C-alpha cells in the first residue's frame, strides 16, 4: 500500500530584503504522521510554517499542502487545516461553548454539527462544569487542550501546532500528547514545533532547522544513532552549535 503524502515541499524559500529566512527547504509529510519541526529561535521555523498555512507567499520553490498549492490555493489550504499556537488559541473573554460556536461558525459547520461537536468535545475533555466559564479563567493546560480540540472541529487533514505546550505542567503536557497520538491514529497529520526535546522524541520524524536550512530530518532513533547521542537534546545541541 502506497502511503499518502499530505505535505510536499520542494526548494521552498523566503527572502526578506537581503536576508534569507528560509533557504530551499524540501521535505514530505505522510498522512497520519506526527512531524516535529524543530530549530533554534530565529532559525526560520515560523516563517516556513506561515508559508505552509497560506498566510505568507514564498519567494521561490513549491509546496503543496493537503492537495493545494501555497501560491494559488491558500483559501483552500486554510479550510483543510487546523492551527493553534501558544500565543493565540482561543478568545479569553468568550466562554468555552462560545469559542466552540465561534470557531465552528468560522469553519462553516452547520448549527447542528456545531452543537453535536460541542457536546462531544465537552464530554471528552470532562468540561461539563466549566462549559459556561470564560476561557480566560481556566488554567493554561486546560485552555491548550480545548484549543487543540477546537482546531480539530472541522476534521482538518493536517493540524499545525506552534509550541502548543509551552509553560504547561508536565502531567497536562502528557495528556496533551495523548490527544495528539489519538488524532494521528485517526489519520490526522500533525505538524508540531516545540522547545521540549523530550517531545521531539514523541514524533514519528523530526526535522531540525539551522539558519534557514533543514540540517537533519529522520526518525528520532536514527538521528540519535547518526549523531552518536543518547537524547534529542544532545542531537539538537550538536547541530545548532556547530
Amino acid at each position, binding site marked *: 500500500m502506497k502511503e499518502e503524502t499530505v505535505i510536499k515541499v520542494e526548494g521552498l524559500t523566503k527572502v526578506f530584503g537581503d536576508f534569507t529566512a528560509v533557504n530551499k527547504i524540501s521535505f514530505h509529510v505522510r498522512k497520519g504522521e506526527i512531524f516535529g519541526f524543530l*530549530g*533554534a*529561535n*530565529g*532559525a526560520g521555523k515560523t516563517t516556513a510554517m506561515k508559508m505552509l498555512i497560506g498566510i505568507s507567499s514564498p519567494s521561490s520553490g513549491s509546496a503543496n499542502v493537503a492537495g493545494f498549492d501555497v501560491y494559488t490555493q491558500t483559501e483552500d489550504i486554510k479550510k483543510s487545516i487546523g492551527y493553534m499556537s*501558544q500565543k493565540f488559541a482561543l478568545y479569553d473573554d468568550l466562554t468555552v461553548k462560545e469559542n466552540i460556536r465561534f470557531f465552528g461558525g468560522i469553519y462553516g459547520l452547520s448549527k447542528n454539527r456545531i452543537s453535536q461537536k460541542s457536546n462531544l468535545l465537552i464530554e471528552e475533555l470532562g468540561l461539563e462544569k466549566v462549559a459556561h466559564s470564560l476561557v480566560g479563567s481556566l*488554567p*493554561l*493546560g486546560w485552555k491548550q487542550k480545548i484549543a487543540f480540540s477546537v482546531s480539530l472541529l472541522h476534521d482538518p487533514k493536517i493540524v499545525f501546532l506552534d*509550541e502548543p505546550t*509551552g*509553560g*504547561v*505542567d*508536565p*502531567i*497536562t503536557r*502528557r495528556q496533551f*500528547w*495523548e490527544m495528539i*497520538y*489519538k488524532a*494521528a*491514529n485517526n489519520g490526522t497529520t500533525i505538524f508540531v514545533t516545540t*522547545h*521540549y*526535546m*523530550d517531545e521531539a*522524541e*514523541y514524533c514519528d520524524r523530526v526535522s531540525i532547522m539551522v539558519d534557514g536550512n533543514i540540517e537533519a530530518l529522520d526518525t*528520532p*532513533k536514527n538521528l540519535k544513532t547518526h549523531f552518536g547521542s543518547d*537524547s*534529542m*537534546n544532545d542531537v*539538537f*545541541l550538536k547541530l*545548532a*552549535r556547530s
Partner: protein
Amino acid sequence: MSIHIDHISKSYGKVNALDDISIQVDPGELFGLIGPDGAGKTTLFRILTTLLLPDHGSASVAGYDIIADFKAIRKQVGYMPGRFSLYQDLTVEENLRFFATIFGTTIAENYDLIRDIYVQIEPFKNRRAGKLSGGMKQKLALSCALIHKPKVLFLDEPTTGVDPVSRKEFWEMLKRLQAKGITILVSTPYMDEAALCDRIALIQDGRILEIDTPKAIVEHYPKPIFDVGAHNTYLLIEKLNAYVHKHSVFPFGEYIHYTDQRDGFDPLELRAYLKNEGLQNIHIERTKATIEDTFMELAKQ
C-alpha cells in the same frame, strides 16, 4: 540566610496563589523554583522584590524585611521579570545607562560583572530594545538587572520559550554569576534545568511539593520505574492505562515510563499482557527516575 521565606500566603479573591510557603536560600546559592504556569512563582517573586504584599507570613532578603525595609531591599536586589520590561524605545545602551543611573552607579563601575553577557549585545548598542531578538532582549534584561551589583538576583522564567542552545548558554552565564558570590533565585517550567540548581523547590498550585537537592529529590522517588516501548505508541499507552496493576503511565521521550502498584512486580507478566493485546517489538527495561517523574508523582497526590 540570604532569602528567608516564612509561612507566606497570598490569595487573589478565591484563588490561593501561595499557600503557606517557607523556603530558606543560603548566601551564594543557586536555588530553583520549579513549576508550571499558575504555580505561584511570579507572585512569590513579586512579594520578595517588595512589589506585592503577602496576606500572611513574613520574609527577608539579604537581611532586610520585605515590609519594614522595602527601600533597602530594592537597592540590594536585581529582578528580571518574566515579561520583557525594559524601555522598548530606548537603545540597548540607553536602557543600561538608565538603570545604572537610577541606582546611583555607572556602566563603567560594574562593567566587569556584566562583561560576559553584555559583549554579546554590545555590537547592537545603538539599536532600540524593541527591535532586538528574543535572545538579545533576554541578555539585555539580565545586564540591566545586574548593573548595580546586586547581592541577590531574582530571575522569573528567564528561559521560557527559548531554544535549548540559548537556554544552555544562559545557564552557563548563571553559573559564572554564582561564582562571583551572587545569590540567585530562578524559576523555570523546564524540569531539565532543575538539575543545574544547588537546591530546588517543586511548586504547584501555590504549594510546595518538596525542597531538596536535585539528586536527593530523584532518589526519593518511591517506586521502580520501567521504560516501556512497542511498535505503536498510541496503542501502548491505551493498553498500559487499561492494565489493572498500573500505578502511573507517562510518555517520556522514546519510551513510556511505567510504574506498577505491586511491590513484587514482574516485568515478564507485563510483557505477556502487552503481547496478548497485540503489541509487537515490546521493550521493557528498568530506568532511573528524573525530576519530572518525581514532580508528577507528587503532583498526583
